[in-house]
């Protein structure tokens, strides 16, 4: 009861952002003390929505929390919601979301229409190659949404109940597509694919299948903030961070992994799996063959699962070789039953709105359970109809991936060069839409508090929205993720210039 009453005030919008920060902070600090990082101030570890959601999420969130907006409003009475819901309903105070709100409130930067707007570097979105997809859609479908030639609208064909885990034609097309993306030596079996409405439910479904409430996954840091939501909210699975450091470019260290496993065991927490992202988000580096094998050996030894989120597999711009978990388990003699791969079209094809995700597993029981769970997260039929021919068009896909690679590399190079010029170095990365910038030199003390102050300066003075490392659970304060694939080449000098203004104030 006491938990609910103060929060109601916050949810109703009467508390400000400050109130909304302090109360949940205190509560979650207490509740999650064993997840506390060694920082002077610990912002709450509540689950924020996915970083790649557009900013209007947060803006409308604030509005819908206020009562006056809703015409047919009910009174906020005393009927209770579940404790799960109570924790999720609290306002987001993560800097990530505050930043998105700021962009939306003032309007995003536009060279001509809004030169003083906030420049969005916090959304992992790729706008570099839409011209190619648009051309394809206009040629193949004469611009029709339904993915058919105009005049050939057969609603009944796509309207009916479909298998909830996706049409077999899409699974087959996806298998071929993934094989190409992950390296030609990988063969993906369509019967081991489960299709979901985006990678977000794919991760949640796997969490439900591989672990019980209160169990845990080990996850290398820094990691994608969305995992906190996908794994912890409803499945109730804990995420135990395996801290990676800049000294070895944030590479996973098996000793540290082992220590974390042992410590969890001592605490009485059952570890059910390791959740890795390869290519990594937010750092953008790739796992080496050796590291992947070490992880698999470790998993075998402890008899746990490995989830490999490979959603950026087709967005490699560096020269390093991407090795998929699928390739390793095919080539080497590891137990395939413990390996599960996540994929989707939100990054590599820039189609996050269409909700196309993949679970790829060799474990028959997991596949059977996951298939059934997709009834809550199926891909819309018209979308399946549009995607099938798109990813079957090998010529188009090859051209798209190659062009995307080229354009992303180009942006990466000029962006990183620009940062270097003003004294900011980046971690070595080869994939994704972002760079992992080292701004440790700009913070007076090695603390999360100072990192967040710098973030605030960047947002409100430089008018740049970037993602601070603490939102990604990075153990070293001072790192920031900067996405550059929503920019044009002309925008980059503006960005660098703005950051420089803040750099100068930090140095003085």
């Amino acid at each position, binding site marked *: 009861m006491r938990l609910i009453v103060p929060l109601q005030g916050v949810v109703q919008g009467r508390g400000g952002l400050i109130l909304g920060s302090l109360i949940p902070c205190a509560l979650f600090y207490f509740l999650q003390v064993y997840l506390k990082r060694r920082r002077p101030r610990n912002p709450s570890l509540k689950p924020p929505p996915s970083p790649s959601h557009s900013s209007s999420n947060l803006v409308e969130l604030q509005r819908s929390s206020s009562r006056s907006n809703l015409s047919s409003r009910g009174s906020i*009475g005393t009927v*209770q919601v579940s404790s799960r819901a109570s924790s999720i*309903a609290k306002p987001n105070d993560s800097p990530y979301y505050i930043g998105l709100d700021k962009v939306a409130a003032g309007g995003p930067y536009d060279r001509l229409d809004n030169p003083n707007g906030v420049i969005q570097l916090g959304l992992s979105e790729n706008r570099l190659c839409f011209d190619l997809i648009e051309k394809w859609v206009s040629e193949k479908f004469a*611009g029709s949404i339904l993915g058919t030639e105009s005049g050939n609208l057969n609603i009944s064909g796509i309207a009916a109940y479909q298998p909830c885990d996706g049409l077999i034609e899409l699974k087959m097309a996806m298998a071929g597509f993934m094989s190409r993306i992950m390296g030609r030596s990988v063969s993906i079996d369509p019967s081991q694919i489960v299709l979901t409405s*985006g990678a977000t439910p794919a991760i949640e479904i796997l969490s439900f299948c591989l672990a019980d409430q209160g169990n845990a996954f080990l996850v290398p840091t820094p990691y994608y903030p969305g995992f906190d939501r*996908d794994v912890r909210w409803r499945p109730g699975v804990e995420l135990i961070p395996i801290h990676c450091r800049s000294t070895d470019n944030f590479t996973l260290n098996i000793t540290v992994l082992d220590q974390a496993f042992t410590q969890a065991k001592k605490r009485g927490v059952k570890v059910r799996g390791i959740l890795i992202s390869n290519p990594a988000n937010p750092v953008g580096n790739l796992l080496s063959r050796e590291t992947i094998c070490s992880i698999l050996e470790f998993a075998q030894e402890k008899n746990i699962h490995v989830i490999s989120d490979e959603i950026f597999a087709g967005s490699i711009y560096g020269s390093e070789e991407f090795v998929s978990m699928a390739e390793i388990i095919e080539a080497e003699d590891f137990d395939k039953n413990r390996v599960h791969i996540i994929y989707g079209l939100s990054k590599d094809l820039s189609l996050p709105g269409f909700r196309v995700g993949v679970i790829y597993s060799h*474990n028959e029981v997991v596949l059977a*359970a996951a298939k059934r769970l997709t009834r809550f997260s199926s891909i819309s039929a018209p979308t399946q109809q549009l995607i099938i021919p798109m990813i079957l068009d090998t010529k188009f896909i090859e051209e798209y991936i190659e062009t995307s690679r080229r354009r992303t590399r180009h942006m990466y190079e000029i962006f990183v060069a620009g940062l270097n010029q003003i004294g900011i170095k980046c971690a070595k990365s080869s994939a994704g839409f972002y760079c992992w910038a080292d701004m440790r030199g700009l913070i007076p003390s090695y603390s999360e508090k100072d990192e967040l102050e710098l973030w605030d300066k960047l947002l409100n003075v430089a008018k740049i929205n970037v993602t601070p490392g603490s939102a990604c659970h990075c153990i070293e304060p001072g790192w920031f993720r900067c996405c550059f694939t929503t920019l044009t080449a002309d925008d980059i000098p503006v960005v660098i210039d703005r950051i420089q203004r803040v750099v100068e104030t930090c140095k003085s």
Partner: protein
Amino acid sequence: MAIEIEQPCVGLSKVAVSETHGEDSPYFAGWKAYDENPYDETTNPSGVIQMGLAENQVSFDLLEKYLEEHSEASSWGKGSVSGFRENALFQDYHGLLSFRKAMASFMEQVRGGRAKFDPNRVVLTAGATAANELLTFILADPGDALLVPTPYYPGFDRDLRWRTGVKIVPIHCDSSNNFQITTPALEAAYSEAESMNIKVRGVLITNPSNPLGATVQRSVLEDILDFVTRKNIHLVSDEIYSGSVFSSSEFISVAEILEARQYKNSERVHIVYSLSKDLGLPGFRVGTIYSYNDKVVTTARRMSSFTLISSQTQHLLASMLSDKCFTENYIKINRERLRKRYDMIIEGLRSAGIDCLKGNAGLFCWMNLSPFLEKPTREGELALWNSMVHEVKLNISPGSSCHCSEPGWFRVCFANMSEQTLEVALKRIHNFMVKKRSE
């Protein structure tokens, strides 16, 4: 000589290995029989006719005609692909405003304008299945219960219980009053939960009812609202069949009652809707939660990240559903066609000597075969059901899979086939009954 050491199997969760998905019940077993031997007018005229799937196939031509005549509805915007990239990037869990407005408007039209819906209270989910599960996550904790009147849609066992860990405590209804929900039945279910030390968090009704094929009467809705208010619990009204009522005046939505009460105590009420039944578009995965509770709206929106509707689909349907001329006409014609089917099946069953519950909505009728059971038990019902599936070759849904307290009732769908197929099905039933009477 190599020594074989058995590798320990890597463990899975309770959710993964549980039977709560319920897919081993007869409801789904009948589908297997159909899948193995599906009826086809020309290629397999002696196959199993699927009468266990509540799908609406009677009005596709109206949708196709609309899309043909309004090409801008099925383009990406402004007659070109210029809207494509913004649509493809749009993954905001609020959903397209134009689509939310369209859904709110459509829901109003389905209710003949007797209730208003605010687009800001519309939360989008990939189907009503997801909407019901999501609401359950939000309204109840693991171990808590929802009260659900029997007979109920078999899918609820899975949707409300599987991942959520929430229980269903049945509100027993019987044929003595046409299976209507009564206050004593509500109280009895609540007490039963209490006696098992289970916390009741809400009541979930389906209106119009599945499998009964009948709307809930106004007085019953008032009683239910009073009950949940008294107990300070939630009410979920799954109104997925609201557009499939044969006569507009006969459907009362809980929304109308709330409006009449000036929304007093409405923060405990949540409505589920979908386009799967009324528009016959289950493959599109379009569902909504409409809640009068701000916290529930906020939370549901965030949770909908796991079940977003494709932005392409939202865009495609937004202009069509906002076209009041089209929707008014669609609702009217769809209704008429469903009523015609209903009349046809009722008449056909009557001439075979079979009675049904008096229905006025939905894609199915609730058929009474209790006079023909060998034994008035669940076993007797399943034996008869077995004959229906394997001898008569009709997949119908036995009442026991809907948790009906009286054996012998069956749900029979009539809108997922052509009229010709329905004739064939009725003939088979006729012959079966003749044979049975002569035995």
